[in-house]
C-alpha cells in the first residue's frame, strides 16, 4: 500500500503554519516507517512497543508544548497534530504519549517543586523514565471526587492507602502521579517504582488497546517522603486540569484513527472489483459511506483547529474540550464501523488496520470522560443544570417546609 497522503478536502493545510505542517509530516513519516510495520504484531501479542520509546523521546514527542528544560515549546495545534498522527498509527501508542506528556509531565511542570521538575522532566522527555497517572479507581470512574484512596500525614511524610484501576503504563512506570484524599482535600503525589507498599499488576484479557499496558495500582500502608507531594496541587481541579490537556489531544487523536480507517476503506474500494468489472467504489452505497466519513473528518478537523487556537489564546473552556473529544471519538468509532463494512470479511482480519482501530476506539469512547458524561458537560454548559449532580430540588423543598 502507498503512504498515507493525508485527508484534506477543504484546503485545511492552508490553515496551518509551515512549522505545524512540518511537525505533522515528521510524525506522519515516523508512524509510516516505524509503527505501521510492527503494530499489528504488537496488537496480536498484547505487547507495548517499548522499542519505539527512545526515538519518540529523541524526536521530542513527549512534553512538546513545554518550553523549559530543553523542551521545544510547540503550540497546541502542533501538539494536536502529533496526537492525530500517533493515533493514526495506534490509539495505544497515542495513549502512551498522552499519558507521558499531559498526565505526567504536565502536572509535574504545573504543580511540582523545582526539585521534582529537575529530577523528572528531562528523563520523562527522553523516555528514559516512564510515568503513569493514577486517578480512576475500581469504584470511581466518572465521579473521581468519590475516590477512596487516602494520604495521611505522618511526622516525616505521608502514608497512602487505596487502589487505582485502568492505569495506562502502570506496571511500566518509574513514577506514578497519584491522586489521594488528604485532610486538605485531593492532592497529587509522586510515587516511585519500588516504594514499599506500592504494587502494580496488569489487566489482561483486553480486546482493545492491546498494544498498550493497562494496570492496577495498589497502596497498602505505603510510606512516601514529604517531598513526594506535588506542592501546588490542590483539590479535584488539579487532576481535572491534567485531563483537560489529555482530552484536548484525544479530540485530535480520534481524527487520526478515523483518517486511517477512511483511507484504508477508500483504497480498498478502488481496488476491490465485484460486479461487472467495476470496483466497489463505483457503488452508490459505498460512496455514501466514504462521503460520510470524509465529511465528518473534515468537520472534525475544523473543530479541533479552532479548539487549538483557543487553547493557544488561553481561552479554551472545558466544555469546548468535551465537545471536541465527544464528537471526534464518535466520528472515529463510526468511521471504523463503516470502513469495516466496506472491507467485508477483510475488515475483521489484521491484514488491514481497521478492526484494530475499531476495537481500540471502544476504549477511547469511554475513557478520559465517557461519551455520555461529555454530553452532560455540554448539557450543563448550555442549560446551567448539572445532570450528573442535579440540585436536590425535592429535598430542599421538603427541608424548607420542615423548617417553616
Amino acid at each position, binding site marked *: 500500500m502507498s503512504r498515507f497522503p493525508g485527508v484534506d478536502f477543504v484546503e485545511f493545510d492552508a490553515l496551518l503554519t509551515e512549522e505545524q505542517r*512540518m511537525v505533522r509530516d515528521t510524525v506522519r513519516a515516523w508512524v509510516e516507517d516505524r509503527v505501521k510495520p510492527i503494530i499489528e504484531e504488537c496488537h496480536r501479542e498484547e505487547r507495548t512497543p517499548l522499542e519505539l520509546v527512545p526515538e519518540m523521546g529523541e524526536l521530542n514527542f513527549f512534553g512538546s508544548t513545554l518550553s523549559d528544560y530543553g523542551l521545544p515549546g510547540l503550540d497546541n495545534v502542533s501538539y494536536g497534530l502529533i496526537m492525530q498522527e500517533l493515533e493514526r498509527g495506534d490509539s495505544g501508542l497515542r495513549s502512551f504519549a498522552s499519558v507521558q506528556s499531559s498526565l505526567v509531565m504536565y502536572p509535574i511542570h504545573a504543580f511540582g517543586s523545582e526539585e521534582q521538575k529537575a529530577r523528572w522532566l528531562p528523563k520523562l522527555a527522553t523516555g528514559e523514565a516512564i510515568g503513569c497517572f493514577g486517578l480512576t479507581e475500581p469504584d470511581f470512574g466518572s465521579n473521581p471526587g468519590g475516590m477512596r484512596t487516602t494520604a495521611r500525614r505522618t511526622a516525616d511524610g505521608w502514608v497512602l492507602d487505596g487502589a487505582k484501576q485502568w492505569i495506562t503504563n502502570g506496571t511500566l512506570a518509574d513514577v506514578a502521579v497519584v491522586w489521594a484524599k488528604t485532610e486538605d482535600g485531593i492532592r497529587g503525589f509522586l510515587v516511585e517504582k519500588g516504594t514499599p507498599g506500592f504494587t502494580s499488576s496488569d489487566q489482561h484479557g483486553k480486546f482493545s488497546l492491546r498494544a498498550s499496558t493497562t494496570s492496577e495500582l495498589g497502596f497498602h500502608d505505603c510510606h512516601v517522603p514529604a517531598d513526594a507531594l506535588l506542592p501546588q496541587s490542590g483539590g479535584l481541579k488539579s487532576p481535572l486540569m491534567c485531563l483537560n490537556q489529555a482530552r484536548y489531544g484525544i479530540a485530535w487523536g480520534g481524527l487520526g484513527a478515523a483518517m486511517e480507517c477512511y483511507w484504508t476503506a477508500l483504497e480498498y474500494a478502488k481496488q476491490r472489483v465485484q460486479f461487472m468489472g467495476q470496483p466497489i467504489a463505483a457503488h452508490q452505497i459505498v460512496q455514501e459511506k466514504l462521503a460520510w466519513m470524509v465529511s465528518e473528518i473534515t468537520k472534525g478537523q475544523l473543530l479541533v483547529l479552532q479548539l487549538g487556537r483557543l487553547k493557544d489564546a488561553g481561552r479554551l473552556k472545558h466544555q469546548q474540550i468535551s465537545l471536541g473529544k465527544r464528537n471526534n471519538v464518535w466520528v472515529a468509532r463510526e468511521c471504523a464501523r463503516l470502513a469495516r463494512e466496506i472491507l467485508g470479511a477483510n475488515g475483521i482480519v489484521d491484514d488491514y488496520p481497521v478492526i484494530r482501530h475499531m476495537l481500540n476506539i471502544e476504549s477511547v469512547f469511554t475513557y478520559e470522560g465517557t461519551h455520555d458524561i461529555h454530553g452532560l458537560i455540554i448539557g450543563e454548559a448550555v442549560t446551567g443544570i448539572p445532570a450528573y449532580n442535579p440540585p436536590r430540588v425535592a429535598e430542599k423543598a421538603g427541608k424548607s417546609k420542615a423548617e417553616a
Partner: protein
Amino acid sequence: MKIAVCVKQVPDPEARLRVGADGAWIDEEGVAFVLNESDEYAVEEALRIAERTGGEVIAFGLGPERTREALRKVLALGASRAVLLSDPALLGGDALATGRALAAAIRQEGADLVLTGSASSDLGYAATGSVIAGELGWPHAWLVMGVELAEDRRSVRITREMEGGMNELSAVVLPAVIQVQAGINHPRYASLKGIMAAKKKEIREVAAAELGVDAGRLGRAGSRLETVSVALPVSGREVEWIAGDAAAVAAALVTKLEQEAKVLR
C-alpha cells in the same frame, strides 16, 4: 569545516501527475512538493561529517519561492543556514545554467566540501553536481557509497560501487564535489525541537545580479537544452497468466525473462 549541500524540491513521487497546459511540464496545481529523496542522503551525510568535525552545513536550493520549504526542512534537520536562489532570472534553466548559478553562490559563500544527491527524481539529469564541480574547477565523484574525511582534513576517502560487486576506493583532494548514492545512510527525522529552531535560522536570498555571472549564461537564457514536451507513459493491457505449481511457474517465468523480455541471460 564548511559543507555545502545542494537540494532540490520535486513533485511528491506519490502524487498523481497530469501534463500541464503548455505540454512541456506537469500541471503543478494541487501537487505537493517535497525534498528530493536522493538529496536527503546528501543532507544526512553532510550533517554526520559536520557533527564529527564540529563543522557547519549550509544548504543551497535553486527553484521557485516554494523551495524555501525544502530549505526549511534541511534547517530543521540540522543545517545552520541556507541560501535560496529563487530569482526568476535563474529559473527554468537546464543543468548547465542551474549548476553555474549554484557554483557561483557556493564560491561566494566558500566551502570545503559540496554534497548533492545522485539525481533529482523529476528531471533526473544527474548532471548538476558535475556542472558545479566543473564551474568551480574542483574534483568530482558520483554514486558515492561512503565518505570519510582524512585526519588532516585535506582530502576525503570515498567508496564507489562499481559493476560486478566491486568497490572503488579513492582519495579526493578537497575542496571537492561529491554526489552520494541513495542508501548511503539512514536519513534522520527532523526532531520537533529542530523544527522550532529552524524558524530562527537564516535563509538568505541571492539575486541573479549578485552572482557575478553574465545574465545570458543563467536560467532559461543560459540554457542549451529545452524540454519540448512531456507525456505520461501509455499503460499496456497485455497480461499473461502463468498457471501451475510454484516450480513450474518459476521455470516458465525464467524462460520468458530470458527469451522474450531478454532481461536475463
